[in-house]
């Protein structure tokens, strides 16, 4: 494709009934663009985890997906509380999710680890009290 294809979504905070909606939409769009199934799966998993994190921890945010010939870039930005200790948050099994969140099947402490596992690059910019921006790429070249 000559030009980048860009998708933008607003992610509602505390709305678990529609959480994952942006990921499902992106999955459909990528399929329409002819992206292979394995790349779509990785993008969908990483984006879903990020979307859920924004709903659980940050009262929502925005998700942007930029598709070029070489990669799919996902930028998740929120104005939530920030992550106090990123290396701790990256550990599998570590979670600060509340019990009511766990009862929905979330809070296994796999969100950020899954996002890293299924993408080629992941950068976390976070500031306490200001918010978090996570940029991930999946190389498709």
């Amino acid at each position, binding site marked *: 494709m000559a030009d980048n294809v860009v998708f933008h979504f607003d992610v509602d905070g505390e709305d*678990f009934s529609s959480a994952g909606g942006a*990921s499902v939409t992106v999955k459909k769009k990528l399929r329409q663009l002819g992206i292979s199934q394995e790349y779509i799966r990785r993008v969908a998993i990483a984006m879903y985890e990020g979307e859920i994190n924004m709903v659980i921890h940050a009262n929502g945010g925005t998700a942007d997906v930029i598709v070029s010939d070489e990669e799919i870039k996902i930028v998740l930005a929120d104005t939530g509380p920030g992550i106090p200790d990123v290396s701790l948050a990256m550990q599998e099994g570590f979670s600060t999710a509340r019990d009511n969140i766990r009862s929905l099947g979330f809070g296994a402490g796999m969100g950020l680890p899954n996002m890293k596992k299924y993408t080629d690059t992941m950068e976390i910019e976070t500031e306490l009290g200001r918010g978090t921006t996570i940029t991930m790429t999946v190389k498709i070249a």
Partner: protein
Amino acid sequence: MKLTDIIDTLSLTVVAGDAEREAEGVYAGDFLSRAMSHICADDLWITIMNNVNVIAVASLTDAAAVLLAENVALAPDAVEAAKAKDVTVLSSDKSVYELCAALSRIDGLS
């Protein structure tokens, strides 16, 4: 293997969706992030979670179907989401263990 054959063999109930799909494997588990990273496309996913997020995970992972164990009822908004996203949902009165044991005796599932 066709879902319809599994439905017949295990006496499952179809809650939503199309039972004509093929299932290739089985995954059992309730934590959504775990499920998200371990369900393969065309897996039958056994769980006791019944909320709308289960439908999103099944859709994103291309699971063949969600199989609710122990007669767990799908939440009303999840039924609507399953129909909207073309996710097949089945249910059974058997436990997760009983379902896994029964499925392990079926050829053609991994």
